[in-house]
């Protein structure tokens, strides 16, 4: 019975000694207050394993918290196993216990490192001297740090995201008018769930993009631009309806995935393959199987000519310049002539001339009646090539929302700016050096959309 109690206290308090239990209770009291200060239910402090996850959240070290959770779980499991070991052979039992103790020691060391990382995050969040880490580094003293931090008047600089979906405002219930041609997006919600929580990454994004339009996608860091693009092409599905020329991308994904070309930010190609083979293999994958070898070859050669790659067809991809690699990466998607082209920072790492040249290519593609959506962090040097602008912004709950969708001129007028970079500045949070007006613009645009919808509905 005593053994079972020892194991139980060992799991709950991380120690098996009575003095340790008292210190652990004091730590829990301090932790209770720290969690409360960050807007998290303090009773989590009583929950073994999860309390460190919540503490890590207060310290903006969520990943460390999750890792610590699994390591602690493994450590406790190993403790239980090693305590319940029974073997007839005493010598073998000794060896086994020694082996387990070595493993537990290793796991304990790893968990200690992660705990240090979490407390270091807490030090940053509370903007206190790093010398506090000496208190937090040892289980015998960390209760002092927790009590002082919990009961002092000092408040954390940042608070974690709200945990409950109920805290979010209700969705707009207006239905989007579906177009026969072009791209219609009605994204209600895009969430990401792990063992610990469900996060809303994007919500309430509705738009219709006309064929032949080149669209700029703007947004600060973490606003959900790439998540939005992945939701449009159907690779990472959201609670949404995405229609291309009236066909639902999610329902007919096997067919429709060839209608959306996605060019990732990095040049994701095999550096040791030649340009020709890279394109030929891409054509084999993307083009319908009924196309003959001759037609495929012609298509590859056409695309190489269009993107200025004909002279480098036998070169290895890794030997090409940054601009050439970007063009090759776009050409791979262009082979299948998709209706919607999505490009994630295609001009990153390119100088002004090369970036302009590349954007001209994209404008030419849009002029063929296709939709081109581009994420770029330097929009002003090529803004004349774009028709529309999508502005995504992080609201106060750190969820990506639509702050604007319309023409370039309408965007300038809506935000009262003359440059796209100023728009980004205005929606970025103050911690990111912006004006922190995201919520205001999201609300204004929602009202504007509702008014427009009323006008359209008569």
């Amino acid at each position: 019975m005593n053994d079972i109690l020892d194991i139980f206290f060992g799991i709950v308090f991380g120690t098996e000694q009575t003095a340790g239990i008292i210190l652990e209770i004091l730590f829990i009291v301090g932790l209770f207050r720290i969690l409360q200060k960050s807007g998290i239910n303090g009773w989590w402090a009583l929950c073994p394993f999860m309390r460190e996850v919540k503490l890590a959240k207060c310290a903006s070290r969520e990943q460390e918290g999750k890792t610590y959770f699994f390591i602690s779980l493994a450590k406790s499991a190993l403790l239980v196993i090693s305590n319940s070991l029974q073997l007839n052979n005493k010598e073998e039992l000794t060896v086994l216990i020694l082996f387990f103790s070595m493993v537990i020691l290793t796991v304990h060391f790893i968990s200690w490192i992660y705990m240090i990382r979490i407390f270091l995050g807490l030090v940053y969040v509370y903007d206190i001297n790093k010398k506090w880490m000496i208190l937090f580094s040892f289980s015998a003293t960390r209760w002092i740090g927790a009590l002082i931090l919990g009961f002092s008047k000092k408040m954390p600089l940042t608070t974690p995201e709200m945990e409950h979906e109920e805290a979010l405002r209700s969705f707009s219930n207006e239905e989007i008018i579906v177009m026969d041609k072009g791209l219609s997006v009605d994204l209600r919600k895009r969430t990401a769930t792990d063992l610990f929580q469900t996060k809303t990454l994007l919500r309430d994004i509705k738009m219709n993009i006309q064929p032949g339009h080149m669209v700029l996608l703007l947004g600060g860091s973490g606003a959900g631009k790439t998540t939005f693009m992945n939701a449009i092409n159907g690779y990472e599905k959201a609670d949404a309806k995405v229609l291309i020329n009236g066909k639902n991308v999610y329902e007919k994904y096997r067919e429709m995935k060839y209608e959306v070309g996605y060019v990732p930010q990095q040049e994701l190609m095999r550096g040791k393959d030649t340009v020709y083979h890279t394109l030929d293999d891409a054509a084999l994958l993307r083009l319908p199987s009924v196309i003959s070898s001759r037609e495929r070859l012609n298509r590859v050669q056409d695309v190489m000519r269009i993107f200025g790659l004909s002279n480098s067809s036998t070169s290895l991809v890794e030997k090409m310049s940054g601009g050439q690699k970007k063009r090759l990466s776009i050409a791979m998607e262009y082979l299948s002539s998709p209706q919607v082209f999505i490009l994630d920072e295609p001009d990153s790492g390119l100088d002004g001339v090369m970036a302009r040249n590349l954007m001209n290519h994209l404008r030419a593609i849009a002029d063929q009646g296709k939709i081109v959506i581009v994420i770029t962090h330097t929009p002003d040097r090529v803004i004349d090539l774009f028709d529309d602008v999508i502005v995504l912004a992080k609201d106060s709950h750190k969820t990506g929302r639509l702050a604007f969708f319309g023409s370039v001129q309408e965007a300038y007028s809506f935000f009262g700016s003359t440059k796209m970079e100023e728009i980004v500045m205005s929606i970025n949070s103050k911690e990111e050096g912006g004006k922190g007006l995201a919520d205001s613009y999201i609300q204004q645009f929602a009202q504007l959309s509702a008014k427009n919808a009323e006008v359209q509905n008569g």
Partner: protein
Amino acid sequence: MAEKTIERKIRHRGRLEQVRIYLGKFLRMFIYQNEWKVFPMAILISALVALVVRRDFFVTMEGTLKGSFALVCVAIWNGCFNSIQVICRERDVIKREHRSGMHISSYIVSHMLYQAILCLVQSALTLFVMIRMGVKIPAEGLIVSSMTVELGISIFLITYASDMMALWFSALSRSTTTAMTIMPFVLIFQLVFSGGFFTNLPAWSTHFTKFTVSNYGLKCINAQADFNNKPSATVWNAVNNIKNNELGGTITVGRIVEILGNEDNAAIKQLRSNPVTISASVGDLYTKFRESDSYQAIRDRTIDARITLGELLTTLETSVAFEELRQKSLLFFTVGDLLTALGNSVRETGLASYQFGKSVTFGQVFDFIDLDGQMEILKDVSVVKVDTTVGKILDSVSNNFLVQGNLDKEFKISFTLGKLIDLAGEENVKKIVQAKTAEAMKKDAYAYTKDNIERYWMIFILFSLVCASLATISLEFIDKDKR
């Protein structure tokens, strides 16, 4: 920017066609990405290993075990390093291609085919190097006609199973750093839990050996090498190494008697139970009799005048009065044995009815009948055969009053193991030692049977398929990767 319009069809290239596309891609990578380096690496590793194992591989049990372990290590090493990085290093590219319509199963199957080609060539090179370096592979195989081909198949399957296992780990790893961190643990695990080589594993840990390629690899190669019928050299080599070492010290007679009488010792017990047959001639017995005190005592005894020579001898042979005399020990026989022989001899010559006519002494009778002459004639006649054991002889010696009187006497002994072996005959000892140690090392798993080898081959194939399936399942979750 004029563009031709392509008629769009729903059907795109299926899994089988995609396998062909990726196989072609991997074969190009072989040239451009310097993957051909695995071949010279296989040659060098095999040559290094062959240097160590070439003499005794397929010759003795120990050499075969050492050689098969080294060969399995080479195969596992080759297999693992062929594929441990192939998926994780291009994980982002795979994700992009998966988004563009690539089937994960096609990708893995093309890797399976490509890796099979690599493993096949590596196995052939390994075998070639081993043979060139002087490893003597038996000629005939059990399943196919050539043992070289059969061994080649085993090396290929071991390499391939390891290759597929590493492919799975590569599919699980998000980066090459992670994969290369896992790799040493995988190799050490294979090494430690190879089953046959590290035999002193704790009992609870032996279950791990069921999941290692090295365990089945070792069993397979040992079975093919006919391990169980090879001589064992370890103990004999150890004996040879110490046979010139001087042994010895001070020992008492009592200690020797104690050692020789200790039946708890299996070797002594065996020695003591060995049967011995001892025979003696009349000459031997008479010489002993002449040398004994009894001889002079009996010479002086008087015989009644009326008694015949035959009666005298019968009296000597049967009378209770002479019982003590008859029991007198002459080596392993008694005076009684000698009298019986003498009586028989006298009766045969017809002298038995001779009457002395006056009182005489036994000495006069002995002289009358020319006892010395008679005995000279009869000296080669075998008198008695005694069936006894070494133990009884040792007990007899131990109980001798001379021995019993000197139990505390110390003396120095000095000898070498070699001299002891020479006493028993070196070839005999070698044969017995090798046979006994070989018997102890035999294992059913190493039996040279078709069933055994086929079973191990099936295990490798199954293992490879399971690992490839796990790699496919692991990679199917690639869309969950963080961007």
